[in-house]
């Protein structure tokens, strides 16, 4: 009976009409489709309000501005996939950015360590991520508390390194204009963000680490029961997120051509909503890098468009908040449950 019923439904699926193929494609990719549609609609509205919005220059500008949040968002996606949250991003970015600039040719003098500046800065960021991960898994402090603390640790490191001297500038002009130079028709920093996102997607799809991350996010207890190394996976996720924050910190300093301890301020709160809008569940276990990329582009388009559309600064914050909520509702309506946080 049930077997017959099942067989019936299986047959239906197997002999599916072309329409059902389309339907199932839409169903599987509902978020990607709805978020792309949102971007499209926003773009049309903004282009009507100001034709310069759709100019090549401005599109490049949007991608250029999306680069940094995109890098951060990829790291955040990993962390959110295991049902945790990493608030330390800005502090870690500051520490890494400060380390990087001080180890590169800069206006304060000092030695230029070249390649090692990158290694040490990213290594420091990864180490901060490692501490977050270990405290989170071993001491069992909720991730948002651990990482909130790590935010200030990172900021503290950056402040100590900064000292009371003047703001260090990158003296190498090739480096300080790298972010906006173009390759393959895209600004370098967006290209880097895209590479990080593609690597992230490949990791998620094709490595045991990635699959275990999804499994842990889906159900930690079951993952333990299946003999998966849950703690090791979680620590690895935080190390990767830390390292990515480190890369972001370097990119932020290169963009500005200089560094101060608050260089990263405000970045986290573009990246986190972008990840969620992109379809990653705050409860963990569900999400995609493609969604994250689109989420970042959506939010960047939004802030850029509002500036170009001559929205008064007094209203801009409120308007962008309102549109953000609308975007979340549109893209997430079918998946409302993922906004539920269980821990």
């Amino acid at each position, binding site marked *: 009976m049930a077997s017959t019923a099942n067989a019936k439904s299986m047959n239906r699926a197997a002999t599916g009409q072309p329409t059902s193929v389309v339907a199932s494609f839409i169903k599987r990719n509902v978020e990607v489709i709805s978020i792309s549609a949102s971007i499209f609609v926003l773009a049309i509205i903004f282009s009507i309000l100001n034709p310069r919005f759709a100019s090549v220059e401005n599109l490049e500008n949007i991608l250029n501005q999306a680069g940094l949040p995109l890098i951060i968002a990829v790291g955040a996606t990993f962390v959110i996939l295991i049902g945790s949250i990493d608030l330390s991003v800005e502090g870690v970015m500051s520490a890494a950015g400060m380390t990087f600039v001080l180890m590169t040719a800069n206006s304060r003098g000092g030695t230029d360590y070249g390649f090692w500046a990158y290694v040490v800065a990213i290594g420091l960021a990864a180490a901060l991520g490692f501490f977050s991960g270990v405290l989170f898994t071993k001491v069992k402090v909720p991730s948002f508390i651990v990482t909130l603390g790590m935010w200030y640790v990172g900021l503290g490191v950056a402040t100590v390194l900064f000292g009371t001297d003047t703001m260090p500038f990158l003296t190498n002009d090739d480096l300080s204009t790298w972010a906006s130079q173009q390759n393959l028709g895209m600004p370098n920093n967006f290209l880097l963000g895209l590479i990080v996102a593609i690597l992230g997607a490949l990791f998620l799809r094709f*490595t045991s680490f990635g*699959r275990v991350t999804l*499994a842990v996010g889906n159900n930690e207890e079951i993952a333990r029961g299946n*003999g998966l190394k849950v703690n090791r996976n979680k620590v690895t996720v935080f190390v990767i997120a830390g390292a990515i924050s480190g890369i972001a910190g370097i990119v932020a300093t290169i963009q500005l051509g200089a560094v101060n301890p608050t260089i990263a301020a405000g970045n986290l709160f573009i990246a986190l909503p972008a990840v969620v809008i992109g379809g990653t569940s705050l409860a963990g276990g569900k999400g995609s890098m493609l969604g994250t990329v689109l989420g970042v582009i959506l939010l960047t388009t939004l802030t850029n468009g509002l500036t170009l559309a001559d929205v008064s600064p007094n209203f801009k914050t409120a308007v962008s908040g309102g549109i953000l909520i609308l975007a979340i509702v549109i893209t997430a309506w079918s998946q409302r449950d993922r906004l539920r946080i269980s821990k």
Partner: protein
Amino acid sequence: MTPSTKSGVPVIALTNIEKSFGSNKAVKGISFSINPGEVVGLIGENGAGKSTLLKILTGMYQPDAGSIEVNGKVVKFKNPRDSISAGIGVVHQEQSLFTNLTVAENIAMNSGKGSSASTKFGIYRWSQIYQAAKVTLEAIGSKLDPKAVVNQLGFVDRQMVEIARAVSADAGADGSSLVILDEPTSVLEKHETEVLEKEIRKLKNFGAVIFVSHRLDEIMRNCERILVMRDGELVADRKTSEVTEKQLFKLMIGHDSRAEASSRKSIDSKETAAIEVNSLSRKGKFSNVSFSVHSGRLTAIVGATGSGREELARALFGAEKIDSGSVLLDGKQINNWRIPKAVKSGIGYVPSERKIEGIIGGFTASENLTLTHPGKSALGPFLIPRARKKIAQDWFNALDVRPNDISQELGRFSGGNQQKVVMAKWLNSPELRVLILDHPLRGLDPGAAETVNAEIKRACKEGAAVILLADTLEEALEMGDQVLVMRDGEVTSSYDLAKQNPSTLDLLERMV
């Protein structure tokens, strides 16, 4: 996976295994061994220590004393991984699949070792993972698509994935593997169970099987030998051919079955029905459903998966929308049906998804019990803890909830005892008019099932109209005054058991 070559060596042998939690001895000196190719039943009431024993076998708990041998070698499981790599696979009572991943991955995830064949330096080789899953699925006779994502599968299919995963646990080169089926049928419909039982018989080929179930008939059908646990001890180890179901029952709970024949009332047609349903429809779920239940009577609804009876039950409780049709309570039509209104009107609902819908795990048992109908434990908006405790304690005594501790968090009780508390939550209402029970016996041991059934009958006798979605056709026929059969969202037939006496086969015919 290879069938045993050393037939003399037991797949698993336990010697004097003990485990305590605080002062509570959960497992007291258990010893037994199982040979290759054997299917052994393990039964016991909730709280008899079965779960603890299984957790020891799967490496979740470490025993305080005693030793475990697998294929003749002494083993110590520090974690589930050790158990899996020793060749022990489990099909869990509560399904334990990653719902966001594919069938193939769920099978491959079982062990670091098992997946190593399909990964190289941590890189996934999807084609091999799909291939390996296909082989395992074929070995157990399943035609599931390895690429399907689990959250799109039904219960039976998920159970098959669990079995495939259990079977894929890697045995040693010369050893046999052990598959533990922890109440695999408790969440299944009867006919689904039959499908599953066929699979269980095939599992012998992979090694040995421990089959845990509350349904004694199932145990008798499928096992050659039966282990009975009570209060943490192994009270019997019998060949199936040497015992009867009654004897087993007695061994399990320590006394005879109290089951009694139910007497059926016929309806006084002049009396207004407690609940009357007219042409109720919800698109894609059920359509044109009409029936009525009088005070003091029990209507059982049976149907296969997809028959729409669960949705109907939820709709009657206001948890799901109704597209058309009407519901009358005591003759009065109700509109804008929502849960709060339903509760206020005296409708109680015991959901099948107990953990999700039925209880608040972090609340104490007494808080859960008085949540909906505080009775005398509330004075206006104020709660009176002492009165609440008294009410809860009375129910605990009446329903024999174990452990008898009303201030423990409800989430920590076993399933059967949770169900008793959920029942009590509704029964505590003096105005209970209609009680809707969605698989109330799901996952309950016979002792607990008996208590719950007795409570259902008592509520009925005291004037509630009961709508029961039974687990089995036998249950429906035993409990009901009336049986409705549903198929594809429609009522295909209705039997008044005071006048008619349908067989399970009659019901089945109308279900499919």
